[in-house]
């Protein structure tokens, strides 16, 4: 039954991704000023919106781990697995942002990169979470989990700064498309539909890989616990 549900979910996600691609490339009209290069936004912006969600899941996981590590060992491990899965998927989405953004910038601004507030804070956020993942990769034991959780909580402080950076500061990065004041938002319904489909598709994809990563990590925790028990008994 579980396998059937997973198979159905994967099918729906793949169909959504195909439909969203079709909407972005063949249905949505071209931006009058930018031409075809504006189509990058249909992939760039959904990733930008969703990495906040995955880093938030990671933050909740880390807070949960710190709150439960002394009293509920198994629940703490579960929270830790969510923290790791959220951070990894968030880094993947953030990487997409940091790669597709310069491709657009090269054509729109004539340069790959500029040290404006939005770009710099996003790069810092990516570096913090990469260092979180490196800490988890190269250290071991419960101390590592505690240190990683604390780093995650401090790193998450940068997320609202990234979100507000092009509202607080005058930046080269375009103004927010949604929630950026009375003039923000898309006026063309076909463009709006393409954005909506792409956000839904990449959300479905992200939740799928998040769940898979969580399962792999839980299995890893069980293998590590069994190995530790075996080493104690032998």
């Amino acid at each position, binding site marked *: 039954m579980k396998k059937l549900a997973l198979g159905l979910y994967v099918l729906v996600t793949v169909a959504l991704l195909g439909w969203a691609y079709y909407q972005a490339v063949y249905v949505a009209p071209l931006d009058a000023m930018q031409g075809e290069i504006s189509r*990058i936004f249909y992939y760039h912006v959904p990733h930008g919106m969703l990495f906040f969600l995955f880093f938030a899941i990671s933050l909740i996981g880390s807070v949960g781990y710190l709150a439960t590590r002394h009293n509920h060992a198994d629940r703490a491990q579960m929270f830790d697995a969510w923290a790791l899965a959220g951070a990894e998927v968030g880094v993947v989405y953030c990487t*997409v942002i940091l790669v597709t953004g310069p*491709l657009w910038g090269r054509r729109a601004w004539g340069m790959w990169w500029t040290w404006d507030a939005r770009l710099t804070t996003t790069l810092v956020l990516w570096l913090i979470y990469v260092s979180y993942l490196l800490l988890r990769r190269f250290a071991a034991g419960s101390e590592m989990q505690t240190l990683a959780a604390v780093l995650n909580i401090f790193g998450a402080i940068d997320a609202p700064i990234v979100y507000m950076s092009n509202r607080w500061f005058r930046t080269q990065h375009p103004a927010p498309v949604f929630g950026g004041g009375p003039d923000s938002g898309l006026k063309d319904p076909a463009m709006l539909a393409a954005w909506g489909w792409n956000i839904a598709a990449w959300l479905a994809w992200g939740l799928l*890989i998040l769940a898979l990563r969580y399962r792999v990590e839980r*299995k890893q925790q069980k293998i590590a616990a069994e190995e530790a028990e075996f080493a104690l008994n032998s």
Partner: protein
Amino acid sequence: MKKLATGLVVAVPVALFCLACYFVFSAPPEPPFDWRLHMSQADHDAIVATLNHLFTRAAYTVTWAIQLGYVAWLFVRWQSQKRSATN
């Protein structure tokens, strides 16, 4: 059979990444600042349209390369877990 599946899962994102690089590096040079002295408006627009097309393709392709690369890494990790569980 398992090795073939693993190879394919890893090869697809690598191939996509190479394709994205090809799109960017095979793009024609951008029109110079004083392009009006060297070419007509139609030639300029054709170069800009080609560049925009290639960079958009590159952005879509590299997105899939990153996403499928992560899935490939998960797949390899899951395979090694299965192997260590049977050992």
